């Protein structure tokens, strides 16, 4: 492959994108179907060319063509091949191309999938997707081109190499997942805008975008979880969520996306909340672009941010444009999307959904405000006032607890109205379990948010268990099935509903994991070989200290033995202190990095960080943390993912017969 072909592919992709708009625009005017077919093919060609450009850049990264500035910046001869590939999204220009490639992939799927469906909406869907593509094509062609040649008077023999923090398997998956999520929301957004333009308030397109939204939401969720996992395994501060601006940037569209995933069910089933759903999907997509703006503009200091660049104003302009055009269109079309039906009762599932939606949006606003507050404070008062984790925790923990409560309430409510008798019947057992749990926790001296979280988790767990039990009982009675077979059939035949419940179970388990944070313990000391120190109920002994040179770093390896205070052996830990680019004669270019080692159980993690080393005196400096219940966050994530996959899995159609 040749880099110039990549650059030309990007140029052509831009040209074909512009032609797509003309072709479809003329079709809308003249109704000559050939123009629509041409427009479809132009869109496919533009997307295909963007993909070719991405493949070419990936190839250049793998072969290490340091004639390209991007390749020389993010890879080196020593970089392992997997990280040469991941270097595609390590820098500004490459990640923009990667954004474009994913959008192009989605565009191809949407165009091919809807060749004969949604034929009145599709011209506008293609136009909206193409406009978003053109924005990124403009960026990659004119502002941050990944095919720029190296600006040097000599032949570059080796590159800078990838940041050591990014040389982690999780980092190979985390950004693509986030991007798949961010970019994917373009598709439901495009359908929503097309429906607004065509005044289509039917539930047909809603059904189509529901699966898209779920897939996208799942990717974004996996991306966020992997980001937390990476932070926990790699960054060495013992946590998985720091309310960092860029973490928040991915969390905000996830919150509004979650609200949308729920409220779209109401539109599909009850033909209600049509305007609200439009508001949510526009907001979610805007937040996706806003998130990209936060990472690219350099206005926020974060471990994730790219360096400050000229992309910020362009992204900000695009965000404003999306907001004005989309909400302007919604305002103009509002009469066509009014719902004839009204909420009939406060104690109905519809109300539960709406209430959960409002809470999600409130939480999103709280996160948004905390995230942009430093920028606003700097603009207004000239001083950047950073809002830290305590602010976010203070605001979001109560909101999160309300959401957790609603997760349990939803299944207990009936559509339209829940009678007083049903309310008493459905809520009695979960409430008894919740109060009993609270009593036990108080007796164990667990108080505050941790107690509330665990008591509410037991409430939600019981309400989900009741739902499963009722379903199983109905099936065993009706079909004379065994309990296991009834459970399997129940999930298989009602994937959307029970997949959703499994996801909710995942959320409960994650909250259980979050509650463990209240009991974290940590200690820091220097240890000589053979000496011991205490942290919580454990003793840590430095048994040995060794050194090893590996292809891309030099490592000091500690052998730590962990015992209980009663003297019982628990585990060995081997944290490392690494020096990347250790052969570089300039000491400033050598990058130290602590490689953690963690002993994980369902009850607690013993988290060891090798913070420093004195090789002469054979002294290692360590930070050891006891983090309870963290494993449940990851177990909950598996449930969340499995549940969502079940919920969106396509149902094989049978012929229905009405009685």
């Amino acid at each position: 492959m040749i880099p110039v072909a990549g650059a030309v592919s990007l140029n052509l992709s831009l040209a074909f994108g512009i032609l797509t708009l003309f072709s479809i625009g003329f079709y809308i005017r003249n109704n000559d179907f050939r123009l629509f077919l041409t427009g479809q093919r132009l869109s496919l060609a533009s997307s295909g060319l963007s993909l070719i450009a991405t493949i070419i850049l990936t190839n250049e990264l793998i072969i290490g063509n340091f004639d390209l500035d991007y390749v020389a910046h993010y890879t080196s001869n020593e970089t392992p091949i997997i990280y040469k590939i991941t270097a595609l999204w390590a820098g500004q220009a490459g990640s923009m191309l990667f954004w474009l490639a994913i959008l192009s992939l989605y565009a191809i799927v949407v165009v091919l999938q809807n060749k004969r469906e949604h034929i009145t909406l599709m011209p506008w869907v293609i136009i909206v997707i193409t406009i978003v593509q053109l924005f990124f094509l403009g960026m990659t062609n004119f502002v941050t081109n990944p095919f720029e040649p190296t600006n040097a008077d000599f032949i570059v023999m080796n590159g800078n190499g990838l940041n050591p923090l990014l040389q982690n398997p999780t980092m190979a998956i985390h950004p693509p997942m986030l991007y798949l999520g961010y970019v994917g929301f373009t598709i439901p957004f495009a359908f929503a805008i097309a429906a607004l333009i065509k005044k289509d308030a039917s539930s047909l397109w809603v059904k189509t975008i529901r699966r898209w939204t779920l897939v996208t939401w799942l990717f974004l969720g996996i991306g966020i979880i992997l980001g937390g996992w990476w932070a926990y395994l790699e960054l060495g501060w013992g946590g998985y969520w720091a309310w960092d601006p860029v973490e928040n940037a991915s969390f905000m569209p996830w919150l509004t996306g979650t609200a949308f995933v729920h409220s779209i069910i109401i539109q599909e089933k009850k033909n209600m909340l049509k305007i609200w759903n439009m508001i949510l999907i526009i907001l979610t997509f805007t937040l996706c672009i806003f998130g990209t703006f936060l990472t690219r503009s350099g206005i926020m200091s974060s471990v994730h941010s790219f360096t400050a660049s000229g992309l910020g104003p362009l992204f900000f302009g695009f965000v404003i444009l999306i907001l004005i055009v989309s909400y302007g269109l919604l305002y103009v079309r509002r009469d066509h999307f009014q719902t004839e039906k009204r909420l009939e009762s406060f104690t109905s599932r519809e109300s539960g959904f709406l209430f959960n939606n409002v809470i999600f949006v409130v939480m999103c606003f709280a996160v948004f405000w905390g995230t942009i507050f430093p920028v606003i404070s700097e603009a207004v008062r000239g001083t950047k006032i950073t809002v830290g984790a305590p602010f976010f925790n203070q605001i979001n923990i109560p909101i999160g607890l309300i959401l957790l409560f609603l997760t349990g309430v939803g299944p207990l409510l009936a559509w339209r109205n829940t009678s007083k008798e049903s309310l008493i019947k459905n809520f009695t057992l979960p409430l008894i379990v919740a109060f009993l749990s609270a009593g036990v926790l108080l007796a164990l001296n667990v108080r505050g948010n941790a107690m509330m979280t665990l008591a509410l988790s037991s409430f939600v767990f019981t309400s989900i268990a009741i739902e499963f039990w009722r379903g199983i009982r109905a099936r065993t009675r009706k079909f004379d099935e065994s309990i296991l077979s009834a459970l399997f059939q129940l999930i298989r035949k009602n994937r959307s509903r029970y997949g959703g419940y499994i996801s909710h179970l995942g959320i409960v388990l994650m909250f259980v994991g979050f509650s463990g944070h209240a009991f974290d313990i940590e200690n820091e000391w220097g240890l000589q070989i053979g000496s011991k120190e205490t942290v919580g109920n454990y003793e840590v002994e430095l048994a040995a200290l060794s050194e090893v040179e590996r292809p891309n770093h030099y490592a000091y390896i500690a052998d730590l033995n962990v015992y209980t205070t009663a003297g019982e052996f628990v585990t060995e830990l081997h944290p490392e202190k690494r020096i990347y680019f250790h052969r570089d004669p300039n000491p400033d270019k050598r990058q130290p990095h602590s490689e953690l080692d963690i002993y994980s159980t369902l009850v607690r993690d013993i988290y060891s960080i090798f913070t420093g080393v004195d090789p002469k005196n054979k002294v290692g400096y360590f930070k050891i943390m006891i983090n309870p219940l963290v494993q449940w966050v990851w177990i909950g994530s598996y449930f969340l993912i499995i549940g969502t996959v079940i919920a969106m899995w396509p149902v094989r159609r049978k012929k229905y017969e009405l009685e």
Partner: protein
Amino acid sequence: MNWNDAILIFIIFISTVWYVIQPMMNPPISNPFDDDNIDAHTRQKMILMDQIKELEMDYEIGTLNKDDFIQQRNQLKRDISTLLQKIKSQTS
């Protein structure tokens, strides 16, 4: 730019342009698909059928009382009948 580059770019360009302009070689045609067609009605019918299934599920597990169940089910059946009539009139 060497010859290899030029040939590769030429091939990419020509094959893409050919693929794109091919529909324009045919005589003008109007939209052969219509959203208000049998496919759309059938998909709408499927959505309503799914809703009846879920309604039955709600009733069986006790989250919906009998009166609401009958009323909502009848409404959905009426909607399906209307759609079936439309499908029938389009096929005949």
